[in-house]
């Protein structure tokens, strides 16, 4: 069947942050994490319920609401104080977060705010005389100065006027780069750099944009274990591993996945040369390495990629889409779990209806999505127990 037309589904009110029409709220979540999902992390504040304020107890704030009148608290992000009073007032809708005496309101959904050291994927939108302007899903365009890239030629050298003239041969409009946030300016815009061999122009794969990390510092200041629920944050979060190589099934080659903290994701075929460089193999001298890599770092020519690998890249990108649509956080563990689950779902479906649905069997976002999420949840629950 070429077309599927569904009747509109009245979305479950409790499933507050999910766009997906595929409801899964009740059947899949384990009991203890349930409340956490529904209210976006109320249980955290409930555990440490302060005795002094009602608002602090419920944990959910709307703009203009008084968070607390108690002068002992210091105001953090998402709040303001009136000069004449001691009350702290929320400026965004979200839930309260406290670190010692610092109180902040963390929005349930926010745009990416760059922080130093973030690994981001960005798209060049403008080429200026000595720098590029890069879209990193932040409110402001980030800049990538010519002086912050590795110039080709095998040696670390100063930029010349010739480099300035041929700035488009390095990066041009539309190109995707993976880079690191070098500094954040006063206005919140970021300055990027690609002075590492693992950074540079992206090729051999597909791009995917999902929601990125929310309000600044929130996820990094979060106690590590509080992420026991999958649906704690959604989109990409800052985590230990943002880049990894995934082995794929069904005859696909290894696939590199880059989860930009800003929610831009790049999934590409793994190329051998870069691995040697990025893992900084000891026996190659620094300069040698430069030479080796410079041949591909600004290339826009794709290598040959087998159809099997393309299938698996497409599968991975769908897995991530499904995770995002169902409000599950995107990080290495969840993506890997989703990928394995998708393979399992395929097996199940294959048993069920044989060759009936040869058409569109790769498509994950329909009925398969809910099953996939279910499996991911199960896997996650198991892992939690082991830990």
């Amino acid at each position, binding site marked *: 069947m070429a077309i599927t037309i569904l009747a509109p589904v009245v979305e479950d009110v409790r499933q507050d942050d999910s766009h997906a029409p595929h409801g899964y709220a009740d059947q899949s979540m384990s009991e203890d994490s349930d409340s956490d999902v529904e209210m976006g992390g109320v249980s955290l504040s409930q555990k440490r319920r302060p005795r002094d304020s009602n608002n602090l107890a419920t944990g959910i704030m709307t703009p203009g609401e008084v968070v607390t009148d108690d002068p002992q608290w210091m105001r953090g992000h998402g709040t303001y104080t009136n000069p004449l009073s001691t009350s702290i007032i929320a400026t965004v809708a979200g839930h309260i977060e406290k670190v010692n005496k610092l109180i902040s309101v963390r929005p349930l959904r926010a745009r990416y705010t760059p922080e130093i050291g973030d690994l981001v994927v960005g798209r060049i939108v*403008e*080429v200026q005389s000595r720098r590029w302007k890069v879209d990193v899903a932040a409110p402001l365009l980030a800049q990538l100065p010519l002086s912050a890239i590795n110039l080709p030629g095998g040696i670390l050298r100063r930029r010349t006027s010739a480099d300035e003239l041929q700035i488009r041969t390095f990066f*041009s*409009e539309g190109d995707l780069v993976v880079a690191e946030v070098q500094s954040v300016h006063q206005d919140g815009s970021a300055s990027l750099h690609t002075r590492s061999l693992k950074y540079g122009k992206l090729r051999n794969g597909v791009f995917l944009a999902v929601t990125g990390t929310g309000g600044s510092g929130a996820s990094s200041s979060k106690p590590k274990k509080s992420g026991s629920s999958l649906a704690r944050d959604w989109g990409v979060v800052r985590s230990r591993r943002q880049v990894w190589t995934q082995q794929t099934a069904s005859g696909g080659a290894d696939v590199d996945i880059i989860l930009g903290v800003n929610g831009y994701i790049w999934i590409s075929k793994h190329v051998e040369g870069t691995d040697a460089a990025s893992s900084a193999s000891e026996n190659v001298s620094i300069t040698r390495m430069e030479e080796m890599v410079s041949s591909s770092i600004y290339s826009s020519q794709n290598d040959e990629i087998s159809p099997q690998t393309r299938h698996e890249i497409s599968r991975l990108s769908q897995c991530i889409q499904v995770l995002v649509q169902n409000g599950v956080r995107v990080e290495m563990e969840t993506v890997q779990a989703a990928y394995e689950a998708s393979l399992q779902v395929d097996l199940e479906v294959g048993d069920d209806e044989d060759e009936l649905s040869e058409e569109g069997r790769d498509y994950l976002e329909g009925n398969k999505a809910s099953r996939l999420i279910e499996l991911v949840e199960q896997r996650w629950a198991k892992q939690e127990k082991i830990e």
Partner: protein
Amino acid sequence: MNDRRRVNGPPGGTRPPVFQSGLQSSNPSDRPRRQRQPAELRKIFLKTGLIPSASGSAYLEFEPSASLAANRSNPKSMIPPSSALKLTCTVHGPKPLPRSAAYSPNLVLTTHVKYAPFAARRRKGHVRDSSERDLGVHLETALRGAIIAERWPKSGLDITITILEAEDDRWWGEPPDSHDASWGIMNVLAGCITAASAAIADARIDCLDLVAGGVAAITEDVGASHSGSGRLMLDTDPAEHASILSACVVAYMPARDEITELWLKGDSSKAVLDDGDSRQGHDALIDGAVDAARGSYSVLSEAVKESILNAVAHA
């Protein structure tokens, strides 16, 4: 409140006076009839380089129909029985894009098609209406496939077409709303494509090939045995046919055998083709339009050659 500074028209609408002679000539026997063979095209006059200030220009004119010529020599009515397409095309550029424009690795094409207010039987306003904008989009699609845009990065090309005389959508003697589909616009588009291609060649912009426009239609003629017998005609003049069922215009590049623009509308399923022709109606229609485009290509290439020879002679 009345505006006393100008002479206002009557508050209600008015009807144009209908002259007795006009009514008489709307006798169906006077309707122009196609005197060409089904595959015979009208002659085209095409000349480039008429507008010295533009970097390229062309003027295109279709041969007036036989009935129009007859009416001129022996006028029965003040109103000409049919009209013939006349249009000019100017090309400005390549020129730098405005500073505010985003970087483009390709030549940025903009097309404007405008009817002169007096071009059609009903006066057109000075503001482009939706059919004119629509024509502009069609024309742009047709040309963009032919131009090698990456030869001219960061620059723009403006193509402006002024239609001096448009094709009729139907015979004027018929009731004004009898069948309203605007078939004339398809002939206009074909003319625009051919003229624009000549003007672009005249402006020395790199092209893959000259691109020519052609029209074919499936018509049902007055006096046909009964309805349901559509005949395929090339280069139809809508005034010459009682009823057009379906029409198609293509922009065609003969050297590459490719179509850059295709616009087909109407019901082509009732086409009656020759025996043994197993094509479906729309396929036959597209093939017919391609044949018509081949015809206009011969004129187009001659006109471009001529302009080069002229340039050489003057040099």
